[in-house]
């Protein structure tokens, strides 16, 4: 089994209240499906990039900067970590996740344990 990160990158979304409710419901249903299967490891949605702080501990003094690490139009909105036997299985789950959250999903394998 390999762990894959399914990440959701998107720009500012402008949904109506009704659309948002539909998407929340679809994601909840997808999460429930995933939790009932052996693929579920962890998942979460993130607060907006304006809530981010970058901490740099590489120098002698730790510095902190307001805002996300990279200023881009698209940002990480949320992610799933799943267990899958191979890429095809991960892609199949990602396709369902993308449909539920109504944006594309990036699939990336975690490095396997040394």
């Amino acid at each position: 089994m390999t762990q894959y990160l399914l990440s959701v990158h998107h720009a500012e979304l402008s949904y109506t209240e009704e659309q948002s409710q539909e998407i929340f419901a679809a994601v909840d249903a997808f999460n429930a499906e995933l939790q009932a299967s052996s693929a579920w490891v962890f998942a979460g949605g993130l607060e907006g990039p304006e809530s981010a702080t970058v901490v740099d501990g590489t120098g002698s003094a730790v510095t902190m900067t307001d805002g996300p690490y990279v200023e881009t139009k698209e940002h990480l909105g949320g992610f799933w970590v799943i267990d899958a036997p191979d890429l095809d299985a991960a892609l199949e789950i990602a396709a369902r996740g993308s449909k539920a959250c109504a944006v594309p999903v990036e699939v990336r394998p975690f490095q396997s344990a040394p």
Partner: protein
Amino acid sequence: MTQAATVVERLHQEAWPHLVASLARRFGDLDVAEEAAGEAFLTAVERWPVDGVPPNPTGWLFTTAQRKAIDRIRREAKREAKQVAASTIHGGTPEPTGPVEDDTLRLMFVCCHPALSIEARTALTLRLLGGLSVAEIAHAYLVPETTVAQRITRAKSKIKTARIPFRVPSAQDITERVQGVLGVLYLVFNEGYLASSGDDPIRADLSVEAIRLARLLRRLLPADGEVAGLLALMLLTEARREARLAPDGTLVTLADQDRTRWSRQLVSEGHALVRERLATGEPPGPYQLQAAINAVHTSAARFEETDWSQVVSLYDHMVAIQPSPIVRLNRAVARAELHDPAQALAEIDALDLDGYHAWHVARAELLRRLGRPEEARIAYERAIRLAGNPAEAAHLAGRRDGLVG
């Protein structure tokens, strides 16, 4: 050529994909498989002319390649002072080793996996299944060897780290994945049939290779209609190769081709496949329909004898399953032969294909027939600018210069 060299060459065509596939399956690593297969052939090239061809040359190649692969794995294990990961290509639960053909089919699905870029898919397919060298692929695609080598290396690395499985897709998505494999083969074929750039107008080697791989796929999936359809389409297109270029390198269109120069053997093989598919009564997919259209064209002894009503009805079918502007364009061109060219032109004008050279060619030809040479001239000019292929540009320039008025 010596007898040994002939045997090596024949086996390189016949046994290479099976050899790579079987090694990939056994050792779970495409790098090991590719290198060991290459070394086995190299050894054969060196040894057979001296020692003679072994009684079972294919078996000899498999044994030698396996030994080379084991040698390499041992060397690496020693160098890295640890056990090489047992399996890097993941097929889920290990199955008993099936027939070699199953491995080759698996390898096809790996090479044409939709998670790889289309350039990587064609390069991997030509290298691992076609047995073409990196230099040959680079030459065919007019890109530097380092680019091809990098594409192949990156693709193999992604297959390994992202764990693209070495197995035949589940029944649920096999149709779609076979479409992906066919798409890669058709892309290779078309690049050879009418090169989109470069001075060598027909890079026959790529078309021949694509046909060889399509034949292989048909042996592996004999019941698949679209596999048969694509093979038939390629054969019926390839049959006309000789007639497609004039001695001065100008493209000759279907209407003006010397039909006695068509390959009868390829035409009859293509027709047989189309008949076989018709006999099943299954609804045809796009490749089968295109093959059928080409079968109609290649059944006519002269252009004037073409059964246009059948061509149009096949295009109607195409539009129903694949309503793209290009399919509509082709149907309109066929309709112009059957009905009123002015009506066909109106249909074509309504299509949003301004960046597509064939759209301008179709307009130019209809405007010519309708006695509107000035507009035809402009359309030929646009088509010439958009045509990437010199043989086609030369043909269009000739048509433009022949306009009266």
